[in-house]
């Protein structure tokens, strides 16, 4: 049941977006978070939608994967849209029934806000859909590298991330094993009231915690035996390569920003 778990939501494919350097993707996604807020009329939103649509098609990620990423926030999107439609009182009255009044400004505002949220989530999920978690970690380590000067433990943070990623499947396998062992002795994880079910998880979590600590201790020993002594003087097997397409993508993004500035009202 816990077999074939895919960590994160990486969609394996070979698209221009997949081949981009994780650093440029991280910078672009971060930058995009800000420029989305520049849009404030139909043209600028149209521009952002067009840009996002092109990026999605360049990623070769099937739409249903994107939809899966969107599902959790759809309620939020609909809710904020409705709030704006009912509560913003600007412009002409479009509809009136008793105490309920819907204004033109409210509808427009509602649509804009919903679009903003959707665009944000789409772009950030594209980042995780086209980049493996370990590449994201590598990219972050490189980008945050300069912060080492201020004694920020960037290398340690990245190593921690990559070890956690490496142990997720191992711990899932172990969880399954413990679950089966408890079920064989009559534990019931699937029925009964929520309180009972939550209680049933205690005998699952305790052994899992104990073994994780043991694993951590043994891993630390194994790392030391293999000469680990912190980030200093360490070389790296994983190399990030900045290509022309990365520069190109960032230039595109800058052009988009300039047009947004020019076209916004």
């Amino acid at each position, binding site marked *: 049941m816990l077999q074939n778990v895919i960590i994160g939501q990486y969609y394996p494919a070979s698209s221009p977006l997949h081949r981009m350097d994780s650093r440029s993707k991280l910078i672009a996604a971060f930058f995009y978070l800000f420029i989305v807020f520049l849009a404030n009329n139909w043209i600028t939103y149209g521009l952002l939608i067009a840009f996002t649509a092109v990026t999605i098609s360049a990623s070769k990620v099937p739409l249903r994967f994107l939809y899966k990423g969107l599902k959790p926030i759809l309620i939020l999107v609909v809710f904020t849209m409705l709030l704006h439609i009912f509560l913003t009182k600007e412009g002409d009255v479009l509809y009136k029934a008793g105490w309920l009044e819907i204004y033109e400004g409210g509808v427009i505002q509602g649509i804009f806000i919903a679009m903003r949220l959707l665009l944000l989530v789409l772009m950030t999920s594209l980042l995780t859909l086209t980049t493996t978690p*370990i590449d994201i970690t590598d990219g972050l380590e490189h980008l945050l590298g300069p912060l080492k000067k201020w004694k920020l433990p960037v290398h340690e943070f990245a190593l921690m991330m*990559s*070890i956690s*990623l*490496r142990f997720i*499947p*191992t711990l899932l*396998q172990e969880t399954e094993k413990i679950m089966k062992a408890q079920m064989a002795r009559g534990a019931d994880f699937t029925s009964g009231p929520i309180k009972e079910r939550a209680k049933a998880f205690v005998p699952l979590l305790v052994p899992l915690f104990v073994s994780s600590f*043991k*694993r951590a201790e*043994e*891993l630390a*020993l*194994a*790392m*030391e*035996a*293999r*000469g*680990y*002594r912190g980030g200093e*003087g*360490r*070389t*790296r*097997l*994983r*190399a990030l390569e900045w290509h022309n397409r990365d520069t190109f993508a960032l230039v595109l993004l800058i052009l988009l920003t300039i047009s947004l500035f020019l076209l916004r009202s």
Partner: protein
Amino acid sequence: MESIISVKDVTFFYPGEETATLKNVSLDVYKGEWLSIVGHNGSGKSTLAKLLNGLLLPNEGTVNVSEYVTAREDDIWEIRRQVGMVFQNPDNQFVGTSVQDDIAFGLENFGVPREEMIKRINESVQRVGMEAFLNQEPHQLSGGQKQRVAIAGILAQKPSVIVLDEATSMLDPVGRIEVMETVRELNQNEGITVISITHDLEEALSADRVVVMKMGEKAAEGKPDTIFQQRDLLKSAGLDLPFSLKLSEALRRQGVELDRGYLTQEELVNALWKLA
């Protein structure tokens, strides 16, 4: 013979414990040999293993690896490069997210340049027969395969000694054979010294030399042939005799005329069919 590791009068206490885990142990490991250190749980054999590459430091006495001393801080990294260690649990020593990342881990620590690293990874992965798995993730591998990756990680560091600390005790029989065959080839063809720490006497049978540990002391040292004839010693060290030996003993008690206890199945079979 030239000794590569020498342990001199080593006594070791775990912090906060009354009795010493190792008492006055002296031991020489010779270049290119296969040495088995056998003993029951708590005999101090794993502690001894961790003293060999400076994971633990002796309270008294010294441990030397060729001209290096584990107690000297400047020597410790060179010692850890030279003395590679394979631990018991295959999962808990796999650091990288894939086979090649894991083999690279040690090399990264020692600051090997990337070009050289790639060369060494490809080379060592072939020596353990895992070249088809370079990009696999640890949870897709069997225990035996993970242990072979651990060995490849050590090989890439160009070691002179490999210490197997109960490295096969969590494996299934197939995995056990895989790992032992790999190590045997390295020992025979490349002259890498092997120290195997185990409580499994079957595994110690094929060693060049055996050291028996008992209650933190060295109880005996010698060739497997002579060690395994000392039944009482092995029994008092809490060790289970190899099957062929037990069978020969049982047959002798039943009046079958065997002249001694036989260590391997082959020897026993040969002796049996020659009986009149």
